[in-house]
């Protein structure tokens, strides 16, 4: 991989995805050692700019940075910096003036990472931009899937829930399409974009119709705000039609099906506790892959600099 930034799965070729997953595998070996640290990124400085509440993605990046001996600083703010009187660009320029090599950014507005990438010399990693992309999540999910099935091609994956507002869904669908999996989406019509057919997916509105013969059920979080935006009549009704209950799972899905969820899960809403905690669930495996994939990306984006330094 020879690129300055990692902004979306959309921009990655299949070969680049393969490379990230391959390096992630060797990173995972570091994570399995008794002393979990490598000197790979010694002298590399990473700034984590999180303009939206996030614990797991921020922790995952921070851990990945520490495991590879990078120096990191965090700037965490619940909203865009412009509301505090400084523009995003000024904030980022200040950070870059500190000779930061990599900026990891989480932002509620699509394109914020692209905006920085275009204007800064530092590498930019998109840690989630609005409802646009969340490439590191999708890559770690691809890693989890490959570990479980030893392949991605031809797997049947159903993504269930709020597709419209999900950056995870967008990135994952594109990634799965690129790797040759068959993708299905399911949810209430108000939460599936009217132009969904730009992706290579099969759309179903009925959960019980989509459950049979899938290899993976990927359940998305549903936000309570959707009710106020008149996208859902009530959570009660959402649960009635779209919650993945143990009963539904056993009745309609394959007995070898795997359940995934990007977290954090709303127990009892999109997924029943018993399902989340069942032997079908890979939800915690996703977390470990997350750290390995982020280590891989941090390494691949700074490889050139590291090589130059050692020559």
């Amino acid at each position, binding site marked *: 991989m020879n690129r300055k930034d990692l902004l979306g799965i*959309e921009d990655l070729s299949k070969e680049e995805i393969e490379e990230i997953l391959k390096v992630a595998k060797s990173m995972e070996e570091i994570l399995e050692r008794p002393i979990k640290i490598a000197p790979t990124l010694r002298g590399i400085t990473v700034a984590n700019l999180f303009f939206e509440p996030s614990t797991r993605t921020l922790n995952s990046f921070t851990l990945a940075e520490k495991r590879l001996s990078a120096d990191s600083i965090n700037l965490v703010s619940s909203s*865009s910096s*412009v509301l505090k009187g400084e*523009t*995003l*660009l000024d904030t980022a320029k200040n950070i870059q003036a500190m000779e930061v090599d990599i900026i990891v950014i989480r*932002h509620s*507005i*699509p*394109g*914020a990472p*692209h*905006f920085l990438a275009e204007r800064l010399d530092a590498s930019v990693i998109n840690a989630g*931009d*609005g*409802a*646009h*992309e969340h490439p590191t999540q999708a890559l770690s999910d691809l890693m989890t899937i490959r570990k479980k099935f030893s392949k991605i091609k031809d797997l049947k994956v159903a993504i269930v829930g709020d597709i419209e507002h999900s*950056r995870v869904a*967008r990135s994952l669908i594109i990634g799965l399409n690129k790797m040759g999996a068959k993708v299905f989406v399911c949810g209430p019509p108000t939460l599936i*974009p*009217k*132009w*969904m057919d*730009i992706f290579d997916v099969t759309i179903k509105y009925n959960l019980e119709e989509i459950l049979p013969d899938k290899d993976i059920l990927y359940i998305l979080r549903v936000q309570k705000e959707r009710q106020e935006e008149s996208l859902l009549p009530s959570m009660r009704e959402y649960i009635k039609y779209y919650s993945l209950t143990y009963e539904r799972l056993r009745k309609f899905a394959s007995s070898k099906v795997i359940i995934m969820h990007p977290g954090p899960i709303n127990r009892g809403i999109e997924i029943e506790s018993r399902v989340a905690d069942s032997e079908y669930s890979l939800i915690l495996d996703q977390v470990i892959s997350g750290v390995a994939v982020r280590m891989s990306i941090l390494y691949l984006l700074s490889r050139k600099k590291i090589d130059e330094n050692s020559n």
Partner: protein
Amino acid sequence: MKIAIKGAHLLDPKNNVDEIGNIYIENGIVIGKSSRKTQDVKIDASGLYLIPGLVDIHSHFREPGKEDAETIESGSRAALKGGYTTVCVMPNTEPPIDNEGVARFIKEKAIENKKCRIFPVGTITKGREGRELSEMGHLYEAGCVAFSDDGNCVMNPAVLRRALEYSLFLEVPIIEHPEDMLLSKNGQINEGIISTKLGLKGIPDISEASIVARDILLSKFTEGRLHLAHISSEESVSIIKYGKSKSIRVTAEVTPHHLLLTEEEVLSFDTNKKMKPPLRTKSDRDALQKALKEGIIDSVATDHAPHPDYEKELEYSLAPFGVIGLETAFSALYTKLILPGTLSFKQLILCMTDKPAQILALPVGEIKKGGTADFTLLDLGSEWEVDPDNFESKSKNSPFIGWKLKGVIKATIVNGFLPYREGEFLREEK
């Protein structure tokens, strides 16, 4: 001031003028052959076209209130450089043009500047809030040539009904900004393929078309004069076509950016491609070109909307809507619609001069003896590149930056004066 322009190709499709000839101007009026040989200015215009001065019925000059984005002075310079001799400025200033004081302030500033003609548009409702009608009579007497809450749609149909009725006694049109603001709420770009890809909230075309339909029915019912601003979608075109077929008193305008660009432009998250209504699909763009050609859409208007770079250089959803257009409108349309043969040159001139002038009953937009001496001199052979550093506008938010365009404005003549010639702005001496 006496001006003689010699050897220009005079072109005014309205009056069937299409010939090489001379124009003599005295005291702001076109006269026949000059009686004396003592002109103040003689222009050898051989190889150039002389057309009626361009008329823009939809611009934002931001004064009073946002003078760092544009002023009447800087906006007028941009207009002259783009070949415009008449500009109607929208009332969404701070404070808005909802009282005679602000209208008179703008008129006075324009007179003081001695650049292009400026006509204020007054608000439809007080404070542009969509509730109570503005004092339309007073605004009219203070120089307003139309009424609009532009930037906001008059969402309450009962209020728009009364505005269309009340304005009948002034015979001045109501300019609607057609956007159902509930359907477009929080929207950033056209709702469609690109918004789905980028995860940006969409503005569906029906947010425009549904108001176009509502307003045309209100116009039919009240017999009020309705002008629809910045039409962007194929759906709207088909409804306007219906309205015209029923002889409803509706006119419409389209901007150069909606005629030339599509939503694909937004893929790079360039906020200079962010405006309302948003750029739509190729099919919409083609329908707009066809509608202009067929006369369903009457005129071109720039919707010149300056914003300073520190406001535009933000995350996509935080940047304001709007792009500038006065300095690029003619050349962009000439290069991209006329040269490829999509529209005839005469049609374009009509859509940028006589037709907009007629919509607002302005006494400009033609070449005739005894008529107003507002002209634009064009060098159609020369090419230029759109460079933000060369804009006269205080703001640089153009969607055409980097484009190579044919057609250079050599001079702009307003009321018999020569405020712009070959890149220089001139003060009138006599």
